[in-house]
């Protein structure tokens, strides 16, 4: 790993909800121009971690650092102010808004002055379409079209384009490929690499090991709120990662149980 300052780092972060420990003593570092893959099964604490990073939750203990300086996110706005942008599974979150309008939600361009100050729809539509085309979504030419009419990959692209346009330097992608077909997923992975090459630090949250291995520079595996492993590209095989994510003992128990019903696990394979 490089010795550069991480753009964002977590130090011994824990998050407790009403007695339930969703995150326990997690430390992570994210570098510009690198992709950190956050792996874990359902309920491993990935969502909580994202919410801590994007300012929805404050950690119960531990600290966040931005460029080596301790930061406290009181709200999502604080996180986005330092350039952290989060894109959710379904990408464009406003399915019934037009591409142009949703692209600029919360940062609307205006023209005119005083009481004539108004939303600049032409600029919004043109910019949104241009940014998406730069990410290879050439099918979209009309900024008036509704987000909901786009394919899953196009919606991811519009959300990523939006984040990049507004100067995000940390991009958190929450299961961007989970709902996509093979081809669309590949396209989204390509867009992730484009963002990475622009120097953006990407946190890719997924439970798809293949996708992670394709684009990841660094990996962290979460199990029941704890960081179970942390390694750089090439340090683990796909099988090692899959076994780890599946969760050791629990899996062995399940296999034993299954074998009483169906014979040994080898027979199933």
């Amino acid at each position, binding site marked *: 790993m490089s010795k550069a300052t991480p753009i964002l780092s977590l130090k011994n972060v824990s998050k407790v909800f009403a007695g339930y420990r969703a995150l326990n003593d997690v430390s992570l570092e994210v570098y510009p121009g690198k992709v950190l893959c956050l792996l874990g099964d359902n309920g491993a604490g990935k969502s909580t971690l994202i919410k801590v990073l994007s300012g929805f939750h404050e950690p119960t203990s531990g600290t966040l650092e931005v460029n080596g300086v301790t930061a406290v996110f009181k709200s999502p706005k604080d996180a986005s102010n330092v350039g952290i942008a989060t894109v959710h599974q379904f990408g464009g979150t*406003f399915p019934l808004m037009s591409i142009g309008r949703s692209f600029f939600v919360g940062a609307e361009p205006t023209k005119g002055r005083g009481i004539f100050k108004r939303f600049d729809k032409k600029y919004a539509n043109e910019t949104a379409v241009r940014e998406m085309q730069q990410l290879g979504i050439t*099918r979209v*030419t009309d900024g008036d079209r*509704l987000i909901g009419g786009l394919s899953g990959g196009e919606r991811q692209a519009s959300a990523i384009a939006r984040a990049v346009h507004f100067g995000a330097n940390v991009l958190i992608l929450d299961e961007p490929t989970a709902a996509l077909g093979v081809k669309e997923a590949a396209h989204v992975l390509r867009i992730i690499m484009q963002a990475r090459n622009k120097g953006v630090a990407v946190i890719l949250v997924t439970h798809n090991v293949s996708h992670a291995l394709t684009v990841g520079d660094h990996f962290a595996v979460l199990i029941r709120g704890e960081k179970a492993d942390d390694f750089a590209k090439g340090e683990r095989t796909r099988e090692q990662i899959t076994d780890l994510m599946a969760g050791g003992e629990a899996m062995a128990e399940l296999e034993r149980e299954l074998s009483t019903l169906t014979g040994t696990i080898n027979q199933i394979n």
Partner: protein
Amino acid sequence: MSTQVKKQSVGFGSLIRRPEFGALIGALAVYIFFAIAGGAPFMAPGGSASWLNVAAELGIIALPVALVMIAGDLDLSVGSVLAASSMTLAILSGFYGLPTWVGIIAALLVGTLIGIANGYIVTKTNLPAFVVTLATLFAVSGLTLGLTRLLVGSTAVSMTADPTTKALFGTLLDGKFSVAIFWWLGVAVLVSWILYKSIFGNWIFAIGGDVISARATGIPVAKVRIALFAASGFGAALVGVLQTCMYNGAQVANGQSFVFNSIIAVVVGGVLLTGGYGSTIGVILGTLTFAIVNQGIYYTGWNADWAALILGILLLIAVLTNNTFRRLALSGGNKKEKKN
């Protein structure tokens, strides 16, 4: 309104993909239906005034309610707000004899304040607006009744507006057309501007689409929602003022029918009950559809017992049609644009 520069989309294909297309069909269909069934009296100026007058008052309430609904909330309190504001005006200017304009300002203030209270409670407690405004509907109606009886000792208060305010709020032009129609036009222009031209409008759509994401982008969600509830309270109060000036008095039981009629007009107009989608043209058309059905039946000479049945069926058809057209809008229909 669309000053689109991109290569696009004139003609029928894009027209049917507009959200208000279903509402337009509905309005035209009921008009033609009643024009045939009601004949000349329905189409005469007096007949048009019938449904325009009803539509105007409903529309003044429905347009701000539509904004509330596009932002994903609901306002059921408009019925009681109307009663409270018209009572405020009648008591201040009728019973206590203050100048009419004092009563009008107080009435509009009462409506706006109730709206702000709704918005404040909804955003502070995170309870569904349905529950909060239902509670306000009851509470305000009780408060109005209680205070009115306490102050006046009756539930009906009469008031005579001074000539200027009577002309502005409560006259019939040509003996037929209520001035409320012009107030409705004004409200329609204002609401359209807010929704499409101001950045505030973009926030309304965003909050209705996904309130969490909207908050994450830095939109002052709570303030926007409170402002929208205030607008809806103001709209209801304005109708209270118009009716009080028109009918020279107020009754505590007034306005309750606007609670559901405004939601019907908004939904028939293509606004999504769950928020995030809708248009002012659609709401205007939905309001007209409601008013034409509401009044048209009396020109047919049929037994008016069936009016509510027709209204119910119409509502169902309208919502189904709107769903179809919304699906069309989402499908985008871009076979022609395949490039890669």
